[in-house]
């Protein structure tokens, strides 16, 4: 039982890393713009597709070092998604800066639907393709076994990258000129503009970073888990990641990671508890439990775990 519990905790941690990586981008955009970017999950989907197409270019040729290929896929996804994010911001969100919040939210839903259903016309969907197992170099394919607990190296990499990115972002936001400007914009949009900050540029940088993170997440998860790609690939992870971001205190960078990991652990714990409740199939409610936790946390502490109480929600 103890081994089972540890294995499930590790599973939960890895699952949480997925949500955390996507949540980072969500939280940045929300922090600056106060916009639930529903299209974020779809940018993540595009990132996964870009990685797939990149891998298809080289997978059959033995010319390229597998690790180099993985790196190349990561770069293509991040750059592609960054450009996509910039375009979305420029075309759909910027003209609505002064519009009511609900209009912007609806636009975000519209962009999300457009990427999902427009993507059906552009991307390969029948049959849904997936990034081949062989794309990961030989050593990455076997799990790492520590004290009877097995860990997927690919997901370990996701966790590692998430933590590194979290630290880097944190440094960026606290210690650089642009990062300070970003926080100023997040704190007070109008005053920041009055203080001579180019708000448009800061918002664009935020979208660029957030979307690049989504692209990285799409590439890494699609490679690690092998899920076949459809244009609805980002729907469920997107919603879960948003929940994670809210859980951790939206706008708060470490909060997003902690929220994601709590969510992953909660899901794993629901599955872990299942055999101990005979006659009731608890795993069926796995996804509902995450939403229940969200509602519970929001009722007790509406600004999320790490959200500053000063922030008016």
């Amino acid at each position, binding site marked *: 039982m103890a081994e089972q519990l540890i294995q499930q905790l590790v599973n939960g941690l890895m699952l949480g890393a997925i949500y955390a990586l996507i949540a980072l981008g969500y939280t940045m955009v929300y922090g600056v713009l106060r916009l639930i970017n529903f299209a974020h999950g779809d940018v993540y989907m595009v990132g996964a597709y870009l990685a797939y197409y990149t891998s298809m270019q080289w997978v059959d040729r033995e010319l390229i070092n597998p690790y180099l290929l993985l790196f190349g896929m990561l770069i293509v996804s991040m750059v592609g998604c960054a450009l996509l994010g910039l375009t979305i911001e420029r075309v759909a969100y910027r003209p609505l800066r002064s519009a009511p919040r609900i209009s912007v939210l609806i636009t975000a839903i519209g962009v999300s639907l457009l990427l999902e259903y427009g993507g059906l016309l552009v991307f390969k969907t029948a049959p849904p*393709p997936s990034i081949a197992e062989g794309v990961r170099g030989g050593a990455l394919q076997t799990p790492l076994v520590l004290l009877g607990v097995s860990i997927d190296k690919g997901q370990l990499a996701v966790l590692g990258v998430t933590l590194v990115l979290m630290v880097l972002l944190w440094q960026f936001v606290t210690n650089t000129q642009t990062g300070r400007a970003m926080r100023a914009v997040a704190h007070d949009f109008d005053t920041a503009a009055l203080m001579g900050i180019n708000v448009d540029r800061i918002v664009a940088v935020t979208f660029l970073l957030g979307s690049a993170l989504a692209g990285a997440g799409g590439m890494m998860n699609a490679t690690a888990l092998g899920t076949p790609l459809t244009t609805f690939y980002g729907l469920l992870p997107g919603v879960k990641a948003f929940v994670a971001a809210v859980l951790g205190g939206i706008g708060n960078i470490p909060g997003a990671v902690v929220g994601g990991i709590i969510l992953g652990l909660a899901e794993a714990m629901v599955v872990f508890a299942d055999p101990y409740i005979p006659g009731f199939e608890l795993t069926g409610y796995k996804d509902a439990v995450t939403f229940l936790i969200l509602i519970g946390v929001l009722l007790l502490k509406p600004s999320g775990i790490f959200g500053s109480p000063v922030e008016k929600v």
Partner: protein
Amino acid sequence: MSRTNRLLALIGAGALLLSWGCKNDAANGGTSGGGPGGSGVRPESPGEGNRVEGDVIKIGVIAALNGDQKPWGEDSVKGVQMAVDEFNAAGGLDGKKVQLIIEDTASRPEVGKTATEKLVTEDKVVAVIGEIASGTTQPAAQVCFQYGVPIISPGSTRVDITNIGDNVFRVCFTDNFQGAAMAKFAYEDLGFRRIAILTDKKLPYSTGLSDVFRQAFTDFGGEIVDEQFYESGTQDFKPQLTNVKAKNPDGLFCSGYFNEVGPIARQKGIVGLNVPMLGGDGWDSAELLNTAGRGIIGGYWTNHYSNYEDDRPQVKRFIDAFKQRYGSPPATAMAPLSYDAALVLLDALKRTESLDSKAITKAIAETADLDAVSGSITIGPDGNAEKSILVLQVTAEARDMPVKRIEFFRFEPKQK
């Protein structure tokens, strides 16, 4: 406010009075489709049906060309189109050509129902082919039942759909046969005694297949040691697989679609669960090996046909023609099944006494030993295609190496 309340109360009272007056209308409209399941006799459709006028035989197709079921819907349309084009190229029916009217269901049941109603009442089609998803076929079949137009589903395996009425048919096998056949194969041929099940809670197909498999495998004497659930769209299955591993089963029955079966196969190696996987025709995808990786090799699944089935010329001919026309082999089993659904209908057209829905329904019901791609099709009294099933093994080279053909049998669950 009180005035408002009184006004609303009055409207309510008026509505009640009105509905009392209209009760006859309502009761007439209240004849829902769907006869009692299992009674053996399917209710006769009360509708008049449509008849062919002029030189064009209109046939409706409903398929998901939008939304998350698009991969199957698109394949389905390709299959039907190919069959009909071949039929027309061969001269049609005494100079009469078949015209397809294809409507999108957008992967949503209510849109599917609207599409069917449009086809049946506005376009006056004489027959309908579709849908893949049982959840959409159900309302579509109810519409067809109401108006007396025959409907042939290529891929809805849900058991009770054909019980709706005598004009509802299908060319795939039911979950009842598929699940029982796999249970039989696992128990008798593979010698498995302890099996764990992974079910996609969101898919009626998956829950239906798992139910029958559980029942059948227990009836044969085996034990279902665990059943775990996930929802389509889930990407990480390691928590569930860890639970399954703790029960130490002989095999893992995955009743979902390949979208999730692939990642499950990859991830079960990660948690150290090294048992063969078993599954149904939801596995069929040209991408299966690529998606699932090494974890699925050695797994068994059931399907309607195999690309490597050299003893049946129809399969080879179909696949060659399909490749030539669309540039790639069928992506899923829905292309050949829809092709077969169209074949059954076109064959019925040739045998029918008159070109109207009632006669065509009768002709479809009399279909016997039709040499189709997915096997020799005989439509049974319950509207289901009685045909054998093929157990396939996934090998490193191919996803569908034929292992055994199991002849049609009726699975009667033991009463608990």
